[in-house]
Structures are given as structure tokens and as C-alpha cells.
């Protein structure tokens, strides 16, 4: 920390603070045309000049880009400083006499009418004052370099390359939004929103947050969702070898730094024009080691967290190259990386437990960690031959096929039910849910099957202990699925909601909901459609669709308690090995939560008791959630609920009468 004096007032600042920032802290305000927190200060307008005494001499500097690194005394309003500002403002006013901002600053310095007329005078209210904010915003906030300055001195002007319209401009409007005079504006506004300005405001808020805070928060621009791998490993949530464990000593090999070094593309328009979260990443010139394109150099889109965790840790393969290759071939064959990974993890555990053998797999040794065999299965799935035909049908069908064909004992059949990580026929995405009951519900109660995108509650539940009771968990399993469904209804990506957060988010009552962004989405809807809604109506909109979908599922024989079942692996340890690897945790819970006397008990006895308790808890959770959502005991929406949300259409009521 450094002590400085500004206009006689003492203040302590961190090294590297600018004089202008320090002055703002003391509420000393001076005209600063080209200074904005979100872009670097280049000292373009020079209006922010001040006198600085550094012990040797007094010199005039621009305060917006003068970094304090020793004790100094600053004079913000010395006579020569005021004179300089006045002179600059008079010149500006003579060139841009009608720009409101210039007129106002000039008036503050007593300049109402300049004494001369500038040869390049521009009478427009929206004249470009050459502040450079647009140029810097395009390059620093949006990561494009579309506009720049051309010419020197009086000829200086903002242009696109060769002063022609440049196709590469993504039309994000950031330059227009930051321009203080309106010199840049959008001429072609797609979708004809009712109130464009209100939408811009929310867009700029996210863009500013990304610019200022992403580096410290999620580094979405740097690595995308792959930043989660090491975090999940630290919290024992990274699935390894078919969700048996939540961390692994070799997980560092899949650290996001490893992928960051390989990413060659992190363009702002990676998946959506103008999105400044730009989490989509790609790897250029990856040389394939297998399959029909072996030896060719290709572009790989990704990998993202789910692919790294699934095709890496969950298969016991800690090789980033394998992950990249699997990513490429899944995309090329049109196979989902999550279903491939989770399905194959199930196969590998079956193989290691004698449910499958080499005869049944077509001679492939499908042990965890066997990269070659794993890749061969992927190619077989793509070609539609060999054992890949069976794996490609997914876990639910595999369980049936193995039961019918493989002459299994009852115990083996039960084991498959326990470790086959699917719900409603969809493979689990890549999080270990054993220690979070709410998250088990997040997967099990999701309408489409085992996907975390309705509700990701592990931190709230397991780490924060924020939702201890069944009612708390049920509330979270009502609110978040409804809120997140809304993104689907609107065709919006949900990542800007919670992969960057406002600086003041912590000061809210309910930070987990990111209220500052919820408000933004409410504004977005209202401004887009011209129909004012509030945050409750937003949830209502989702509830209508969500309940309708549940009724639809019910009509097809699902959408009930039976279809909300989850495999036991997602609720607790299936094997002794799993129990013993986290024995301290489980023993503690048996004693503290259920008063169970563990003295002299074998791992199997303890495991069985734990299972009974956890399975009962899951059913109790379903009770609480059904109740909160307005469903009956079997998990079917009631006719009253459908009436309440205005969805009691005759066809719907007809179906529900059968419940």
C-alpha cells in the first residue's frame, strides 16, 4: 500500500492504482471523456490532466493512465491544470459544438462559445469525438479487432479495414453501446424487439462482467467448461471408473491447463455471434491416431467438461489425447460423448465383474483404462458392427440384452441394475451424486432422464449445507428446474446466467439464484415482446410447459414414481471397495445420522444398512418434491394444479382422469 495526497487529502492505495481511481474514492470528480473501467485507459482525450509532485518535479500527466507506484502529491485543480482543460474543451467545442457531453464539460469550465471555428467543424449532435472507446471495446471486450483508427492529427478517424464494410464484424453492438455520443449506431436490428435499449443494457451488463471478472471467476473465455475438471476432483465429484469414486490421483493429467495449452481457437463467435462468454473452444491440426481418418489433421470442437470427465476419468483413461480423439469421432459419427462414455463405463465394470467376457465382446479386453479397446468400440458403434452394435443401444437395453443372453445369476442382474447409470433410459452426465440427496433428485426427477441441466444442486446441498430438510430440497427442486426450463422455452443459453456473476451478487439474500441476472432476463423478455412480466410469471411460464411435459410422459406410461427411480450407484456405495475407500465418511454418517452401532459390523452389513436408509430418503424426497410441484403421490400432476396454471385443456384432463 502507498500513501498519497490528493488536493490535501490523504489516501492509502494499492500499488498500480491510477490517480483517477484514487480521486474517485475521495469523491473528487473531474472530466474524463475516454475513461471506462471496462477498457484500458489510453489517454486519448487528455481532459483528465492533473499536476503530480513526485518529490523531484511537478509535472502534468493524464490521471486515467498514471499508475501510482510511490508516494506522490496530486493537484487535481491547480491553475495550470484548469487552464489546460479549458483550452482543450474550447478546441473540442469549436470542432464539435453540438455534442451534449462536450457542451456540458465546456460549460463547467466557463466555455460557452469558442473563440474560433475549427476547420473540420462537425455540427452533428452525434459527432465522433475520437475518444477511442469503440476501438478498445471491440478489441478488449469482444476480442474482435474490427474497427481501428486511421489517419493522423486532424485526419484521425474510426474506420473498418480499408474503410470498407467488413464482413467479419459480428454485429454485437458493443461499440455502439459504449460510444458516448451516438456516432455509432445499429442500422439493422434483427427480431424487431419492442425496446431495443433495454435489451442492450442487459447485454452490456453481461459483457462488462465477462470483461472485468471472468479471469477470476470461471475463466469461461480461457478454457470454457473444462475448468470444472480439477474442481470436481477436489470436491470428490469427478466420476472415475463408472462413478465408483469422485477423485483420482492422476486427474491432474486432465487439468484444464493441459487443454488450454492445446486450444487454438477461442473465438468470441465460437458458438453464437457476439456472445462474449465465448466458452466454445477448438483444437486445430490434431492428428488422428485411429479410425477411418487416421493420419489426417483435423479440427476438434472441444472438449468440454462432460467429455473430459466422461471419456477420461470415468473410463479410467487419464490421457488427454484419447479424450480429444474420442471427442472428434463422437462428433463425426453423431454420437453423444456423455452417452458413449457412461455406457462404456458400464460395459467396463460388467467386463471386470464377469458379466461380460472376451467371447461376448468380440475379443476386446474392455478393462478400465484400455484406450485401444475403448476406441475400437467407438469405431464399431460408428460402423454398426461387432460388439459396438450392442453398446450403441445404451445402458437400459444392454441390461436387458445381457440378462436375456448371458446366463446371469440374480445377484449379477441386480448388480447391473445398481451400476448401470441411467434414468428414464438416458445415461447420466458426469457428476458423482452419492453425497447429495438433492442432486440425486436433480437427476432422477428430471423429465428427460438423467441430466443435470434442470438442477445442479451439489454445492448447495452437500458443500454449503444450505438445504438440509426435505422441504428445502424440494423447494430447490421446484425453483431451479422451472427457472432453467425457461431458457429452453426462450431458446437462450443458460451459461451467462451463472457462469459469470455480478460483482455485488454476494450482497443479495439469495445469491444462488443470481438475482441481478434474473432481473435481466425478466427485462429481456419484457423488452423483446413488449409484454411486462415479473420473476414469478417467468416461473409460471415454465410451469405450464413442464407440467404439460410430465402429463405427456404419463400418457406414454412414464411420468410416475416408478419412472423416477435411480440406480443405487448414484445414491451410495454399491461395493465394499467403494464403501471402504470412504469408510470414515460413511461410518460417521451411520453413527451420527442414524444412530447405527458400527461395532463389529462388516463392510457389507454397514453398506446394506446405509443403502436401506438412503433408498428410503430418496423416496421421501420424491414425496416432498411431488407435493411442492402440485403432483399426486405417484408423481402425476393433479387436475387442480393444471387448472391453477391454466393448462386444464380437455385432452389433458382426459389423460389425468386415468391417474
Amino acid at each position: 500500500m502507498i500513501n498519497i495526497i490528493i488536493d490535501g487529502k490523504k489516501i492509502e492505495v494499492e500499488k498500480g492504482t491510477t490517480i483517477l481511481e484514487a480521486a474517485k474514492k475521495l469523491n473528487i470528480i473531474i472530466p474524463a471523456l475516454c475513461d471506462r473501467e471496462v477498457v484500458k485507459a489510453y489517454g486519448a482525450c487528455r481532459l483528465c490532466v492533473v499536476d503530480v509532485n513526485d518529490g523531484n518535479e511537478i509535472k502534468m500527466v493524464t490521471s486515467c493512465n498514471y499508475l501510482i507506484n510511490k508516494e506522490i502529491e496530486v493537484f487535481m485543480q491547480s491553475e495550470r491544470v484548469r487552464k489546460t482543460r479549458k483550452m482543450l474543451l474550447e478546441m473540442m467545442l469549436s470542432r464539435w459544438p453540438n455534442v451534449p457531453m462536450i457542451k456540458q464539460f465546456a460549460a463547467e469550465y466557463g466555455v460557452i462559445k469558442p473563440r474560433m471555428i475549427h476547420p473540420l467543424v462537425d455540427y452533428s449532435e452525434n459527432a465522433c469525438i475520437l475518444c477511442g472507446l469503440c476501438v478498445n471495446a471491440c478489441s478488449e471486450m469482444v476480442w474482435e479487432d474490427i474497427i481501428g483508427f486511421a489517419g493522423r492529427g486532424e485526419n484521425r478517424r474510426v474506420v473498418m479495414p480499408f474503410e470498407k464494410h467488413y464482413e467479419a464484424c459480428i454485429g454485437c453492438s458493443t461499440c455502439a453501446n459504449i460510444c458516448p455520443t451516438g456516432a455509432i449506431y445499429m442500422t439493422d436490428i434483427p427480431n424487431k424487439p419492442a425496446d431495443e435499449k433495454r435489451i442492450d443494457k442487459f447485454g452490456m451488463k453481461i459483457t462488462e462482467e465477462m470483461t472485468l471478472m471472468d479471469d477470476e471467476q470461471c475463466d469461461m473465455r480461457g478454457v470454457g467448461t473444462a475448468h470444472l475438471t480439477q474442481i470436481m476432483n477436489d470436491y470428490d465429484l469427478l466420476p472415475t471408473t463408472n462413478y465408483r469414486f469422485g477423485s483420482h490421483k492422476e486427474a491432474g493429467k486432465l487439468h484444464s491447463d493441459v487443454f488450454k495449452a492445446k486450444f487454438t481457437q477461442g473465438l468470441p463467435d465460437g458458438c453464437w455471434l457476439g456472445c462474449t462468454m465465448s466458452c466454445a473452444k477448438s483444437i486445430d491440426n490434431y492428428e488422428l491416431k485411429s479410425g477411418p481418418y487416421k493420419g489426417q489433421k483435423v479440427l476438434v470442437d472441444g472438449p468440454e467438461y462432460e467429455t473430459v470427465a466422461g471419456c477420461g476419468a470415468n473410463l479410467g483413461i487419464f490421457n488427454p489425447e484419447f479424450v480429444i480423439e474420442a471427442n472428434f469421432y463422437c462428433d463425426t459419427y453423431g454420437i453423444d460423448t456423455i452417452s458413449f462414455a457412461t455406457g462404456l463405463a458400464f460395459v467396463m465394470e460388467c467386463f471386470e465383474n464377469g458379466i461380460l467376457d472376451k467371447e461376448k465382446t468380440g475379443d476386446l479386453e474392455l478393462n478400465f483404462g484400455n484406450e485401444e479397446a475403448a476406441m475400437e468400440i467407438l469405431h464399431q458403434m460408428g460402423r454398426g458392427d461387432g460388439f459396438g452394435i450392442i453398446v450403441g443401444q445404451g445402458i437400459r437395453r444392454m441390461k436387458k440384452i445381457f440378462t436375456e443372453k448371458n446366463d446371469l445369476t440374480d445377484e449379477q442382474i441386480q448388480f447391473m441394475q445398481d451400476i448401470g447409470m441411467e434414468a428414464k433410459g438416458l445415461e447420466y452426465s458426469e457428476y458423482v451424486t452419492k453425497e447429495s440427496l438433492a442432486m440425486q433428485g436433480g437427476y432422477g426427477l428430471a423429465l428427460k432422464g438423467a441430466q443435470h441441466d434442470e438442477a445442479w444442486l451439489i454445492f448447495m446441498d452437500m458443500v454449503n449445507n444450505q438445504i438440509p430438510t426435505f422441504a428445502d430440497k424440494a423447494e430447490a427442486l421446484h425453483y431451479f428446474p422451472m427457472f432453467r426450463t425457461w431458457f429452453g422455452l426462450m431458446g437462450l443459453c443458460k451459461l451467462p446466467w451463472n457462469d459469470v456473476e455480478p460483482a455485488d451478487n454476494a450482497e443479495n439474500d439469495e445469491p444462488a439464484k443470481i438475482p441481478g441476472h434474473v432481473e435481466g432476463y425478466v427485462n429481456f423478455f419484457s423488452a423483446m415482446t413488449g409484454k411486462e412480466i415479473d420473476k414469478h410469471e417467468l416461473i409460471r411460464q415454465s410451469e405450464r410447459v413442464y407440467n404439460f411435459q410430465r402429463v405427456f410422459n404419463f400418457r406414454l406410461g412414464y411420468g410416475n414414481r416408478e419412472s423416477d427411480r435411480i440406480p443405487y450407484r448414484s445414491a451410495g456405495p454399491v461395493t465394499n471397495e467403494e464403501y471402504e475407500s470412504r469408510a470414515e465418511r460413511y461410518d460417521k454418517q451411520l453413527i451420527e445420522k442414524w444412530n447405527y452401532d458400527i461395532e463389529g459390523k462388516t463392510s457389507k452389513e454397514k453398506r446394506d444398512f446405509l443403502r436401506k436408509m438412503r433408498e428410503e430418503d430418496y423416496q421421501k424426497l420424491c414425496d416432498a418434491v411431488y407435493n411442492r410441484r402440485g403432483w399426486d403421490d405417484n408423481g402425476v400432476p393433479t387436475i387442480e394444479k393444471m387448472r391453477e396454471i391454466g393448462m386444464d385443456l380437455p385432452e389433458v384432463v382426459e389423460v389425468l382422469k386415468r391417474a
Partner: protein
Amino acid sequence: MKKQILVNDNLIEWQENLTINKILKIMNYSFKMLVIKVDGELIKKDEYGTKIVSENADVKIIHLISGG
């Protein structure tokens, strides 16, 4: 009796000069989007290294959600 603090309702041993950063290390909390309160009082990010947590404190380290 050992001196303790509560971190997200878990009893943790207290030690001299216990800062927020130290607690994060002890708990192996590597996630960045946190809201931290000590006895109900919000602790700002720039205080994580300096704020000393006293014994018997009730520390809440709220992890926000991110990802997929």
C-alpha cells in the same frame, strides 16, 4: 477441549491466525465463486487473506453454481 469453528455446519479445529484463505485450504475449497460470511457478516474477497477468524465462529462458505 479443542477450540473449534463451524464451517458450513462442519466442526473444524481452530488455530491461531486463522484467515479465510487458510480455511479454504483446510477444506480443500478450490472453487472461485464463493459468498463468505463469518457470524453473518459478509467478508469481501480482498479480506480473505487478512480477516482473522476467531474461535467458535460460524463460517458460511457458500459455493454458487456454475457449469453445464
